[in-house]
């Protein structure tokens, strides 16, 4: 049978494929330890050093390489991602909750929401800047126009995650609470929300990371003040130095830290759910 020959070939191919996905980043990580400030963004490594990492934090003596404008940008990116996360998760939970019953126009509304993740950032960004600049006549800021455009992008993700969770949700526990005379809001807080919490956590993670990384929408919709991706984009046109690589390594580490926090919270909520189930069994 050919599959005996084919399988090892495909396995080797998949390995090469993964190398293709990871290769550039490894090269970037290696070059971030280039000697500074004379070492350029290419091989060979003159001498291993952490110069460019110190350069990012402003711990090196001034040189011809200007420091990346990161301080304010980091603050703005984190704040924007947080605002986007909260708003799109709340909207996502509400909309998914509404979709548990069929209502008139639910099909149209579904496509309306999902459209937000399908339309490329160039178009939503352009449209939003037209709206702000030519119709409303307001200035564009990262906390206003860029914020609403980010939510347009992340809200569909939160919505779909919540929809998937609520589809598997057993509504008899809610009905039990209602029949005991518990108010709908209290039922949601005490019964529904704890049960859908893992989904909420995933929706938050999606929204935060997508917004933190979002670039094309921000480029159009935010004003003068840069977010982190815009600061990186600013280095594209000029000569690049290994400090951009060091920064790339640091943001990646940050993303993984975020993922770790998510994993810990997720495990905790699953364990708590297990504990509760166990207590119920005993009682």
């Amino acid at each position, binding site marked *: 049978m050919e599959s005996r020959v084919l399988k090892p070939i495909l396995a080797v191919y998949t390995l090469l494929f993964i190398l293709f996905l990871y290769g550039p*980043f490894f090269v970037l990580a290696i070059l971030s330890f280039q000697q500074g400030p004379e070492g350029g963004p290419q091989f060979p490594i003159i001498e291993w050093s952490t110069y460019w990492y110190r350069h990012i934090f402003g711990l090196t003596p001034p040189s011809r390489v200007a420091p990346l404008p990161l301080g304010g940008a980091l603050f703005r990116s984190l704040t924007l991602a947080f605002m986007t996360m909260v708003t799109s998760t709340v909207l996502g939970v509400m909309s998914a909750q509404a979709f548990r019953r069929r209502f008139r126009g639910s099909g149209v509304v579904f496509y309306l929401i999902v459209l937000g993740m399908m339309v490329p950032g160039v178009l939503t960004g352009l449209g939003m800047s*037209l709206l702000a600049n030519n119709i409303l006549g307001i200035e564009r800021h990262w906390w206003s126009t860029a914020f609403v455009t980010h*939510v347009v992008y992340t809200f569909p993700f939160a919505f779909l995650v919540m929809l998937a969770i609520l589809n598997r949700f057993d509504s008899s526990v809610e009905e039990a609470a209602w029949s005991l005379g518990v108010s709908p809001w209290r039922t949601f807080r005490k019964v529904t929300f704890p049960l859908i919490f893992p989904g909420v956590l995933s929706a938050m993670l999606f929204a935060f990371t997508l917004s933190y990384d979002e670039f094309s929408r921000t480029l*159009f919709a935010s004003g003068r003040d840069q977010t982190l991706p815009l600061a990186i984009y600013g280095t594209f046109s000029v000569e690049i130095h290994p400090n951009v690589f060091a*920064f790339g390594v640091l943001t990646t580490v940050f993303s993984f830290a975020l993922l770790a926090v998510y994993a810990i919270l997720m495990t905790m909520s699953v364990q708590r759910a297990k504990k509760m189930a166990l207590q119920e069994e005993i009682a």
Partner: protein
Amino acid sequence: MSNTAAAAPSTNTGKSSSWWLIAPGAIWMALFLVAPILLIVYVSFWTQTTFKIEPTLTFKSWQTFFGSDTYINSLWTTLRIWLIVLVTTFVIGYPTALFVGLFVKNKTLSTVLLVICVIPFWTSFLIRVLAWRPMLGKEGAINIILMKLGIIQQPIEALLFTELSVVIGMTQIYVVFMVGPIAFMLGRIDPNIIEAARDLGADFWRIFRKIIFPLSLPGVVVGGIFVSVMVLGEFATAAALSGRKVNLLGNIIVTQVGSLKWAMASVVGVILTVVMGLVIAGFLRIVDLKREL
């Protein structure tokens, strides 16, 4: 729906509460997604002068677009790069999807492999684009390795700041969107069908042509739509890896907005939207997704 029946007693309050729950999200999307996109169409007919733009309707920007070689060329470049990247992501991605979706019988292992493919997305998109610069440059990793291996004597200069580098970069960034849906569809194939075909004496190539590939086609279409929408709306990869030599429609929009030529940017935006609509419609003609998924 079963819970509609269960909630029957509270139908009245239920209906109105559905509306209250959906209203904020729907209004948000209408105001900040649909209205801005319609506005692009409207502003593309505005009158642009050097210093300002007025809402007097005219076809002038449209005539400028179709009368200019620069703009028409960028339309062709966009379509060319889109088509090339679509083919490369498919050709490079399909074997991996085949391995992950069909040949790996262990579900955990195939999930792990998919997660490994997705992990790079945790790095900033721009950093992933930028990472190709030290790979492809004249003194880059690829040239060094090829020269050490003795395959080439002189470094290949055509690797960076050309159309090729844009294609390589985009392929690496978007190929996973092709692998995922195809692997998903392949994973759903009933192994008994393949077993039966094999028992009837079909060789692998024939099984692939008659069973595996047709059944994976919905995955190819979904992956193709993902890749197409993202590549057509691209500009950052071209800006970073082509040294401003490759101008996609997205790059034109960025420069036009940068110089406050709103009407022209809108014209390009409308053309981009039309191209995307045609591409998606074309893909959906291949497979009826609603039936297949």
